[in-house]
């Protein structure tokens, strides 16, 4: 008897809920100022398809890249984020399977956004080709500015707490110009190119980024005491640009001192602007301070496009297929991507979920001293997705 009455009661309640929902929607719709779901229109123009979904190029990359990208796709699916991926297998170590560079470049310049795993770069060139695939992609799209936001995560043990600095790196010239030659056997010259135009551009990017993020200080990292002309030009360009930003403090630091300060007292840094190679080193150093390559997100910008990738680029080939890589960095990248295309609510949702997983502290991958798998972590993030945000 009680069973029957309970069921009847449940049915009644559910029925009324349905009715309530129906009433709710029909009551709101006639009003003109009903908000369209923000995602249906809130995007950069070119990525919008007819249904208001966004297209994004996806490069899984080498090593653990595909596993991490899969984690991102799982989370996007679970949160029903209106983003469609255009996937390209792109690899230097697997040239026969790789999609042609032009296709990838076309796709990114059409979609204007891309999420990218790490591409492996072999140590020696077998073909005589000096440019890596990464460099070719950057040059083709003119992705000149790399931004890595190094931020301590809650509840992750490291030597320093509350690290919060942004490292901005020029990545289309400098030591990465791929101009090397052996003039006499046994003597190799490698050209480092610094131009005023690109130095000014990256300096301006750094200051504009600082303004946008409400930061107080920009530090130029250089070695102008040794490379007086090359790094000197970079430093002068930064100094010149600093005059346009009277409300942001500007300081300069030699790269060796900078690395020492970074490991001793990283909290003094705010925004840093560096030429190519120094940026690479400082990026990795700073990433190591807050938990390693698996937790730091980065992005590369040109005037038109943005490519979101991990801050420290390691393929972690030892972990391939073992399901132990940390997807945090990639998930943070995806959250940054969403806020770049004005899907702030979704971005916040993913960031909050990641924070909750860390605060909860039960789910840790191996690199942070836990025992959990990539899959566990992804599921934990999905579990904490709060659709009400």
């Amino acid at each position, binding site marked *: 008897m009680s069973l029957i009455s309970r069921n009847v009661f449940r049915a009644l309640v559910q029925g009324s809920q349905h009715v309530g929902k129906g009433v709710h929607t029909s009551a709101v719709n006639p*009003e*003109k*100022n*009903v908000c*369209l779901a*923000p995602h*249906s*229109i*809130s*995007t*950069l*123009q070119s990525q919008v398809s007819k249904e208001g979904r966004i297209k994004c190029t996806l490069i899984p990359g080498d090593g653990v890249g595909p596993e991490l990208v899969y984690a991102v796709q799982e989370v996007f699916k679970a949160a029903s984020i209106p983003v469609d991926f255009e996937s390209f297998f792109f690899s230097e170590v697997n040239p026969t399977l790789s999609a042609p560079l032009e296709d990838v470049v076309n796709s990114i310049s059409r979609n*204007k*956004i891309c999420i990218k795993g790490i591409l492996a770069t072999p140590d020696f060139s077998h073909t005589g080709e000096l440019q890596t695939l990464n460099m070719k992609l950057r040059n083709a799209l003119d992705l000149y*500015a790399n931004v890595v936001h190094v931020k301590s995560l809650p509840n992750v043990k490291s030597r320093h707490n509350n690290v919060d600095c942004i490292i901005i790196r020029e990545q289309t010239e400098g030591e990465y110009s791929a101009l090397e030659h052996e003039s006499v056997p046994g003597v190799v010259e490698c050209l480092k190119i610094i131009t005023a135009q690109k130095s*000014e*551009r990256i300096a*301006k*990017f750094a*200051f*504009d*980024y600082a*303004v*946008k993020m409400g930061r107080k200080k920009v530090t130029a990292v250089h070695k102008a005491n040794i490379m007086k002309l090359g790094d000197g030009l970079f430093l002068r360009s930064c100094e010149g640009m600093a005059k*346009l*930003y*009277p*409300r942001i403090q500007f300081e300069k630091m030699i790269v060796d001192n900078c690395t020492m300060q970074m490991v001793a007292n990283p909290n003094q840094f705010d925004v840093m602007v560096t030429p190519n190679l120094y940026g690479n080193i400082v990026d990795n150093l700073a990433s190591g301070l807050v938990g390693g390559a698996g937790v730091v997100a980065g*992005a590369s*910008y*040109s*005037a*038109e*496009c*943005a490519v979101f990738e991990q801050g420290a680029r390691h393929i972690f080939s030892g972990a391939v297929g073992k399901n132990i890589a940390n997807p945090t960095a990639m998930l943070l990248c995806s959250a940054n991507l969403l806020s*770049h*295309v*004005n899907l702030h609510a979704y971005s916040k949702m993913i960031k909050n979920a990641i924070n909750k997983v860390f605060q909860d502290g039960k789910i840790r991958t191996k690199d942070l001293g836990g025992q959990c798998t990539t899959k566990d972590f992804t599921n934990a993030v999905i579990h904490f997705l709060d659709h009400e945000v």
Partner: protein
Amino acid sequence: MAVRLFSKLKALPSVPATYASAAAAPATLSDFDLQHKTPVIRKQKLIPVAQYGGRHAVSMLPGGGIGPECMGYVRDIFKYIGAPVDFEVVDIDPTIDNDDDVQYAITTIKRNGVGLKGNIETKSEAAYVTSRNVALRNELDMYAYVMNCKSFPGVQTRHKDIDVVIIRQNTEGEYAMLEHESVHGVIESMKVVTASNSERVARFAFEFARRNGRKKVTTVHKANIMKISDGLFLETSRRLAKEYPEIEHNDMIIDNCCMQLVAKPHQFDVMLMTNLYGSIVSNVVCGLIGGAGLLSGRNYGDHYAVFEPGTRNTGTAIAGKNIANPIAMINASIDMLEHLGHHFHADMIRRAVDKTVNVDRIVTPDVGGTASSTDVVQSIMGNIGLDH
């Protein structure tokens, strides 16, 4: 467009050599010379544009009066449609006697390239504090001011279907701010007209007419009285008109022009004039179309562009009462989006504004409606995206 114009100008012999920046000019020129004798020398060094990953940074100068609330509406709408623009807000305190804030504002526009501004108050009456709006235009060398005056069908006015473009020299003429008292009780105020600036703005006007499919350019002047200064302006525009044979050119004296405007405004197409006449004529046309709250104006230099409501009034009296007309500022923001190349977003807002004003007729009291500012903005946001 302005940059392209500039490249043409460089080929002309009458323009003195341009220097990369004021600092690079020969040491023989004093600051005074730079300021008053060689107006074209104040070319700015090119600074990279603030566009990253498809998003633009734009300086926002809310100014005084109704500026801040109108800027709030613009930001609401931009946020709602997700326009790829990041605003850098610079507040200028009108009561302070020094120019630090204004200089900072100018610097931000220099590095962002584009600004959106309300009207900035200059409360100080000290002689050494110049009008901040004028200082901004002079410092950024924004020599052309453009105002598209097109009737809104939904606003009741005496004349229907007015469609006039006013192009105004923006940096010299009566606004040279050179006044002095030579003898006690006798004050001379200089009006400066230079061939180079007249030529730039005239070329701008004809190029504008050609690019926008306009048929006629009317030069407005008072050369019958000021035979040399306005004469130069008139002569320059006549000379340039010969380079644009497909565009009809005529001229009109300012007093007659005002009369014709209120009587038969449809005879005008593109109007070209010096600074003060531009100020008067643009206000007359604004009045014809429905007041200060509807139209937007654009300031162009070779490198910078600043967008603002068309008549430069602060509207301090109605600030905070929720009755200010937000359409002017929203139109200025549409102009800005167009300038940045975001036509998709610009069209989206424009269609919504059009529907709100002309179809739904939700307008503020200054143009005969009963709605509050927020009602208008709500209605625009409601209309956005409906026609997709």
